[in-house]
């Protein structure tokens, strides 16, 4: 299935019903062609709603909106109407976390009256729930703040590392936090002792990370192939080498997508191609082999069988791997 949209595609996701694309014109497009024009201005970030039905999006209108095929409603607005830069949602705790400027906010999908706002010294660039949805990591300049999602008054645990952190992820076992950095590297912390992990050697900024194989591998973009870091045992990737699959000198991997429960990986390239691979097996399966504009959004379905992709020219598709 393929689509052409007249606006930038800012995210691709799979909810219970299928693929969903969010766009720079503020609309949410469902795979069956139905769409909601929900934001005034671009959609900057998106996550699947904790119920698995539809998506929650943050826009440059300062609103968080829940869109389903038939309806859409505002769940929250940012302080001062600032752009909503990042969002995450937890199916386990039913909480939604989003950031605007220096503020991390938490709302509850099942309780309209619940809201927490946590202030940071510097702008929050990314938010991520731990696997249970009880803690939230917020990446910012100089490191990462860990908050308990429901506690009103608290001091966050600060994970410090000099430099600008541009996005964050929790390992599926909840033992590690990894941030992407402005200067083409990753940084990680083992939570039990705040031990630092430096993961470098990238030729380009790392824009996306994804866990697969029961959390034993973390795939990343930012190199000529998909970089795979081992997350095995108590030490995670400490003292271990990363491997790279799908190396191609002429292109960069711009995005990766995976599911912790499955052993497969999808990668989108700067030359418009998209592949799907099983790192334990052989070879790459190009689900989009023709070249074009850089891949701008990528998602793998929950069962690991479908890939949704979009490029910078407004083309998008959903293909079987």
């Amino acid at each position, binding site marked *: 299935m393929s689509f052409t949209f007249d606006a930038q595609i800012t995210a691709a996701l799979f909810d219970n019903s299928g693929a969903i694309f969010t766009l*720079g*014109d503020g609309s949410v497009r469902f795979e069956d062609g139905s769409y909601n024009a929900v934001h005034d201005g671009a959609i900057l970030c998106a996550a699947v709603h904790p119920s698995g039905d539809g998506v929650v999006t943050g826009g440059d209108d300062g609103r968080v909106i829940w869109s389903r095929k038939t309806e859409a409603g505002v769940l929250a607005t940012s302080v001062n109407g600032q752009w909503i830069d990042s969002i995450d949602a937890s199916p386990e705790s039913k909480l939604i976390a989003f950031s605007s400027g220096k503020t991390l906010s938490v709302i509850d999908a099942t309780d309209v009256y619940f809201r927490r706002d946590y202030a940071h010294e510097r702008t929050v660039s990314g938010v991520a729930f731990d696997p249970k949805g009880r803690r939230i990591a917020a990446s910012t300049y100089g490191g990462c703040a860990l908050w308990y999602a429901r506690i009103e008054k608290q001091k966050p645990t600060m994970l410090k590392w000099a430099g600008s952190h541009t996005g964050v992820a929790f390992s599926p076992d909840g033992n590690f936090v990894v941030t992407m950095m402005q200067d083409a590297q990753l940084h990680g912390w083992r939570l039990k002792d705040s031990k630092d992990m430096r993961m470098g050697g990238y030729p380009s900024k790392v824009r996306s990370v994804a866990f697969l194989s029961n959390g034993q591998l973390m795939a990343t973009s930012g190199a000529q192939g998909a970089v795979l870091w081992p997350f095995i045992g108590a030490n995670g990737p400490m003292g271990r080498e990363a491997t790279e699959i799908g190396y191609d000198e002429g292109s960069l991997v711009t995005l990766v997508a995976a599911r912790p429960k499955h052993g497969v990986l999808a990668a989108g390239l700067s030359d418009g191609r998209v592949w799907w691979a099983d790192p334990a097996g052989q070879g790459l399966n190009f689900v989009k082999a023709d070249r074009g504009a850089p891949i701008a959004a990528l998602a793998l379905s929950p069962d690991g069988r479908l890939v949704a992709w979009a490029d910078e020219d407004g083309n998008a598709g959903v293909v079987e791997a």
Partner: protein
Amino acid sequence: MTDTVAAKIPVTVLTGYLGAGKTTLLNRILTEDHGKRYAVIVNEFGEIGIDNDLVVGADEDVFEMNNGCVCCTVRGDLIRVVAGLMKRQRPGKPAFDAIIVETTGLADPGPVAQTFFVDEDVKAKTQLDSVTALVDAKHVMARLDDSKEAREQVAFADRIILNKTDLASEAELIAVEQRLRKLNPLAPITRAERANVPLDQVLGLGGFDLERILDINPEFANPAHGEVGHVHDEHCGHDHHDHDHGHDHGHDGDHHHGARGHAHNDDIKGVSLSLDRPLNGVKFTNWLDRLLGEQGQNILRAKGIIDVQGEDRRMVFQAVHMILEGDLQREWGATERRWSRAVFIGRDLDEAALKAGFEACAA
């Protein structure tokens, strides 16, 4: 499907001390009937759409890069805002005709400019067009005396708009222009009242475009008329009364702020270097790298066009602190004077040492 090379969106950085007239100029840009779509990034928050335009708040989030170099600072908020603006882009069309970044009166334009060189995402989508400084003709002398930021803003500019000229006498204006030119010999000075400068002299200048370095101010390495060391070449052949560079003609004979600048002990100055013999390319590159590595913190801007021995093309470079870009550009014209020129603008520069270092690069 074909590869698309989307045009990069030009970015103008508007700087100037409090009260210099930035807001007046911005209001004009936003309200004049020009049929263009601008995104304006300002410090005071508020997303006010004016017809086609968008005004976005920034928060001066300056941060150091992790390369351990203290002068390589960028603005994190700009990276974020520019990335957001790009999401408004429609396939094949730029999101905006131009982006204008207004810095507050006290802000250092350095980190703003460097953001457009350092961040790979920003660099891929935008191109820094120029840093334009507005100065208040009546009050700028006092500001330059008491404010390091005011001196840096002038030193950093690709163009200076001397505003509120109706409030100063001609003699005062000439004195101001001379002092501005000592701080920054690169930037043409345009006089204005109530910021009434034509918009095409603010937007679309190509001040950071290597290919256009000469076109902006052909005489940038040539001391002004009447000053020591001024060289007449084909660029000076025209009628002095038609001059639009706003440079000093030295005709008034009332030269108390003259070439030696003894009246003001500015810590920032521009040093112009030139050489009529070709330079050794390797020697020059090594010298420039070392110079920027050692003194990049104090060097705000540098630009130059170099005649490299054995090379038919002009070597053009520019730097913001330690961040350097350079390239071999078009061939020297048949009638063009082949010479090397460079200007360094910075704090506590040792003019004699710079001159000696530059000349030691001769082939």
